[in-house]
């Protein structure tokens, strides 16, 4: 230590002699200054820890400063926080906090460097660059050459087949026609095909029969519901305020805006701008303002004794994190408290994004008279008129600061709106950028992330997994794409086709890759057990809302109206026993009883149990991919939830109304209505035996018929009225329908 000191002193003395007087070009930051920081400071202000947001192991970090602002003021060492800290001056804790501290000579050397202009080496002021794949520009390449050119339906297939051929794997044959039709109908509209649609498709042997089905489905208004619901997962849409009180809210006009926008194929670019900044568009229309409901889906804490500012800030933070996940596929939330550990994102940059979202009021927008519903939410006064929740820019901007440790009571240096330096810059503008500039930047053609993230997420819905498996992390900790060229080709295509979502859906579902059979391939169990190379399609359990929709559609009970206030289908007793504020749930007896699952009123603190059992998101934060679990509670739901027994009664009535009188005909018809296909002989026999057994039973115990039919809700009462069929037959048929609706295949898209 002593020896070290002596050497250092000698050296510094020489240095000081040499630098006395005018600015000395001989001072070299890299040689003379940086090593001091690296030795004495980098443990707390370095690559692993950045206390106070300060990094001193790189020149860029020293230049950038801490959460409290710059630490070096060129030419003025006495005003530089760095020097003050080294000396423990100006009420700052002396740094480093423990011995060994810097020697007086070393401090003098740093002081001299600052006073001589604090010259940094070239490049220290350059924005951070990254070689990580997702930050690089999208570079579409031509579809690769393949051997089996006949398999290539569109360029997607060339990319997929090239990989398969390279690995010596054959793709799977095309799925049979009924499976394919049920798959694409569920994927594009969330509803299974009708019997007529199946028959027409089977009969149609023209070369473009499938493509015409796809066009029909893309034109269906249910397409907007299906893909709108995916977007609502991202938007964390719900019908209540969340937290403890969980009051009802009206924001379904936003939900309906999403459905309309998707149906109109509003270019994703416009779709983005209107949701993030519709209010800032020149002459903003009511619709464009409604769209800003996207970021009003944050929760509101109405608990007594809260500090409103705390929860306002939490909502802003949620908006930043959601925006980062939804458009950039980045875990920006990590930077709330510290610089990103893995990705080139600084805490300062997080709060620059925060600054865009820190300047809004949260009014409700009047929309005219309230529509009538079957069952208004009890405990809530019917509003005089319909309103929806929107965002509105404040006239006087709020100041934004870095929040130390993410704590709103500890503001640090002030920040202005800005975007992360690792991405292409915001276009230069005379005024401070606002949300509109941010929205446009997110969908600017040179943003490498947004198009990739969006097409990847769509892909993941069709194949169970995205090309990038970590669909919510395109950063360095995410998985690299399985087919990078395909991802870039799709992303470029998305932009080239004016951000048309329908075009992307059409491209994917008409590809040969998509149309493959989903049957397991024993030959791939060692080479590609997770099907990353896409040598087959996958069986996917339907999403929570679609489990209901598929059964409702089979039953013939479905009320296919689009949009409107959320509805109250039956739900089991006692759901509110586990919440702070008990809500009443008066189930509708009218057509609202049979609306699609996406319209079920969503209380954040007590969602409909059937939705939660099947992995519907809790609307707490943005959900970029749903889990797909397979649990006993799901079995209990399908078996015992009164709603599903009612659908079974509907399906039984339908079989009778369609004139099916014999057991085998009834079996076949119920099977077709639920699954689209004909049963195989084994299935037919098993179901016929079941039906016969139940019929015999009910004939022997006629007193069991009425309780069964009466227990199945309005649809059971309908079935009870079909008196031309013997009662025992009707009861048996209800149970048969219930078996069919409980089959794994019924709630699975193959």
């Amino acid at each position: 230590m002593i020896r070290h000191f002596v050497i250092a002193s000698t050296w510094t003395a020489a240095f000081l002699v040499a630098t006395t007087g005018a600015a000395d070009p001989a001072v070299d930051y890299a040689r003379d200054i940086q090593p001091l920081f690296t030795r004495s400071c980098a443990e707390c202000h370095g690559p692993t820890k950045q206390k106070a947001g300060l990094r001193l192991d790189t020149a860029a970090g020293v230049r950038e400063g801490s959460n409290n602002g710059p630490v070096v003021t060129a030419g003025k060492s006495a005003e530089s926080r760095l020097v003050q800290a080294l000396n423990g001056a100006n009420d700052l804790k002396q740094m480093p906090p423990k011995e060994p501290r810097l020697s007086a000579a070393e401090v003098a050397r740093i002081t001299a460097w600052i006073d001589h202009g604090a010259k940094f080496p070239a490049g220290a002021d350059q924005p951070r660059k990254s070689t990580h794949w997702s930050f690089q520009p999208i570079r579409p390449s031509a579809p690769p050459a393949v051997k089996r050119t006949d398999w290539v339906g569109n360029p997607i297939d060339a990319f997929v087949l090239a990989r398969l051929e390279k690995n010596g794997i054959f793709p799977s044959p095309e799925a049979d026609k009924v499976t394919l039709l049920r798959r694409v109908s569920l994927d594009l509209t969330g509803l299974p095909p009708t019997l007529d649609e199946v028959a027409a498709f089977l009969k149609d042997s023209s070369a473009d029969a499938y493509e015409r089905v796809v066009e029909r489905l893309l034109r269906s208004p249910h397409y907007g519901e299906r893909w709108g619901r995916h977007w609502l997962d991202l938007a964390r849409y719900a019908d209540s305020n969340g937290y403890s009180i969980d009051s009802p809210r009206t924001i379904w006009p936003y939900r309906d805006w999403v459905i309309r926008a998707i149906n109109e194929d509003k270019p994703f670019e416009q779709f983005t701008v209107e949701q993030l900044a519709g209010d800032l568009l020149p002459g903003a229309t009511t619709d464009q303002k409604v769209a800003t409901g996207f970021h009003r889906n944050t929760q509101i804490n109405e608990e007594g004794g809260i500090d409103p500012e705390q929860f306002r800030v939490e909502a802003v933070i949620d908006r930043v994190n959601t925006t980062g996940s939804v458009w950039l596929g980045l875990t920006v939330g990590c930077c709330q408290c510290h610089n990103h550990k893995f990705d080139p994102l600084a805490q300062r940059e997080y709060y620059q994004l925060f600054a865009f979202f820190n300047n809004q009021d949260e009014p409700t927008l009047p929309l005219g008279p309230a529509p009538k519903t079957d069952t208004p939410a009890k405990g809530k006064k019917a509003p005089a008129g319909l309103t929806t929740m929107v965002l509105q820019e404040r006239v006087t901007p709020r100041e934004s600061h870095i929040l130390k440790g993410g704590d709103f009571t500890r503001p640090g240096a002030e920040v202005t709106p800005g975007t992360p330096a690792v991405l292409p810059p915001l276009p230069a503008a005379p005024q401070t950028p606002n949300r509109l500039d941010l929205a446009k930047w997110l969908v600017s053609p040179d943003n490498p992330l947004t198009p990739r993230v969006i097409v990847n997420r769509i892909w993941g819905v069709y194949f169970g997994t995205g090309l990038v498996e970590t669909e919510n992390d395109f950063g360095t900790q995410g998985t690299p794409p399985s087919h990078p060229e395909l991802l870039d080709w799709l992303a470029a295509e998305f932009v080239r086709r004016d951000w048309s979502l329908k075009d992307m859906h059409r491209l994917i579902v008409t590809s040969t890759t998509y149309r493959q059979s989903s049957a397991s391939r024993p030959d791939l169990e060692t080479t590609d057990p997770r099907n990353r190379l896409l040598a087959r399609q996958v069986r996917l359990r339907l999403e929570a809302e679609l489990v209901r929709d598929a059964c409702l559609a089979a039953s013939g009970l479905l009320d296919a109206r689009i949009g409107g206030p959320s509805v109250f289908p039956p739900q089991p007793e006692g759901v509110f026993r586990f919440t702070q504020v008990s809500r009443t749930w008066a189930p509708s007896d009218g057509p609202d009883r049979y609306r699609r699952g996406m319209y079920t009123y969503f209380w954040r603190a007590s969602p409909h149990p059937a939705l939660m059992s099947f992995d519907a998101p809790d609307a707490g934060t943005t959900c970029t991919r749903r889990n797909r679990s397979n649990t006993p509670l799901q079995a209990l739901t399908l078996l015992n939830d009164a709603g599903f027994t009612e659908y079974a009664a509907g399906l039984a009535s339908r079989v009778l109304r369609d004139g099916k009188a014999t057991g085998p005909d009834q079996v076949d018809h119920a099977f077709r209505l639920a699954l689209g296909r004909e049963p195989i002989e084994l299935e037919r026999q098993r179901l016929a035996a079941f039906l016969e057994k139940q019929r015999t039973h009910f004939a022997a115990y006629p007193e069991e018929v009425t309780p069964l039919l009466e227990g199945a809700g309005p649809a059971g009462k309908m079935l009870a009225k079909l008196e031309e069929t013997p009662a025992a037959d009707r009861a048996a048929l209800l149970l048969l329908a219930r078996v069919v609706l409980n089959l794994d295949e019924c709630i699975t898209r193959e």
Partner: protein
Amino acid sequence: MNPPDPLLLQTRRHFFRDCGVGLGAMALGSLLGREAQAAPAANPLAPKKPHFEPKAKSVIFLFMAGGPTQFELFEDKPELQKLHGQPIPESFIKGRRFAFMNTFAKETPKLLGTKHKFARAGDGGLSVSDLFPHFAKVVDEVAFIRTVATNVFNHAPAKLFLNTGSPQFGRPAMGSWLTYGLGSEAQDLPGFVVLQSGPRGPRGGALNWGSGFLPSTYQGVPFRAGGDPIVNLGRPAGITADRQKDTLDAVADLNKVRLDRTGDPEIATRIAAYEMAYRMQTSAPELIDLSKESKKTLDMYGAEPGKPSFANNCVLARRLVERGVRFVQLYHADWDHHGDANLHLDGPLETICREVDRPTAALLMDLKQRGLMDSTLVVWGGEFGRTPMGEIREKVGRNHHIDAYPMWLAGAGVKRGLVHGETDEFGFGPVTGRVHVHDIQATILHLLGLDHTKLTYRFQGRDFRLTDVHGEVVREVLT
């Protein structure tokens, strides 16, 4: 991917050998082979090996929702009694934020003594007030921590914090982490069960036992006190047990046919899920039927079959851990005694103490008598404590307080008769032995054989933990 669990494979093999219909030997071989390689559909609740030898197998968490007042229960502070009615010294509260800031902003809050009498209980030096006479007799069974600190002072965020390690939404609850890490020994019941008593459910509702980013397999299953214990457990109206059995048999047979044709192991999982659902329809009603308990046992708890109460839930909790359920959480509300007309430190506090005191003590003794203390960890506490200063509304109460509040642990691997941590003269903050909520979480995982820094789940490119990036096991309370 984890190697397949031999027990699970054995179960599957048994299942297909004894119950298989239309499933050839080839298909069976292929199915088992698939599990061996990718295991995409292995039963996620099958028991898993912990990181190290566990002390406890199950947890019963008595969640005192609302934040119990330590000053009426455990904190005997002569200085507080002496200075009753005096403003709290400025040094304690300068620059501090509290819930209900407005009430506190009007004037410096005044110290509030208690009316209740304390007496030394047990050998560890704990004082217990006259509100908890039964607990006073069993304090030597527990390790009492006076000095738990949390980060947030509003109910819903603080409950989430204690349950999930974060005041924000989207993280899995402790019970979800435990069943994710350990599976469950219960074959006929969910691994994570939530019970509730008192006038209302906990603030935040389902988010308190949500599985966050973990699959919903791990979410807590609320058991209701009356009617069907689990939503949709009972057969629909008009469907008899025989019809249900026929239905299940047909569904199983047809699902097996489809499994044979598609080879999708998810179908095998679904078949197993229906089997378990069927078993639950028997086991859950049997579980909640307290009529089989002896009168002596029921009296000890103060439980009355058919009358929902915290006492009944304590009996149920014991029955659940007897059956191998991993994590049982009992919420009892409402401890939020601010001084409102119906929530203040007189009658309402006395009532809730009566509801909780006897069953809590009985649970400890019952577990002990049955030898279950050796495999069960009992945790008692709320989301925060209350201020030594009074809060005057219509009546007298106390505000939320997060610096030092009481919790206790008891059972497997926990020291008996220990009091950990000391608070200052007013019980405002810790003097020694501060324990953070993350430390409590780390300790609970530790007792179940899990290293809280290693029980992780990768989500959004980051390995998440129950304890975020914090938490130290509280070694002082371990045997």
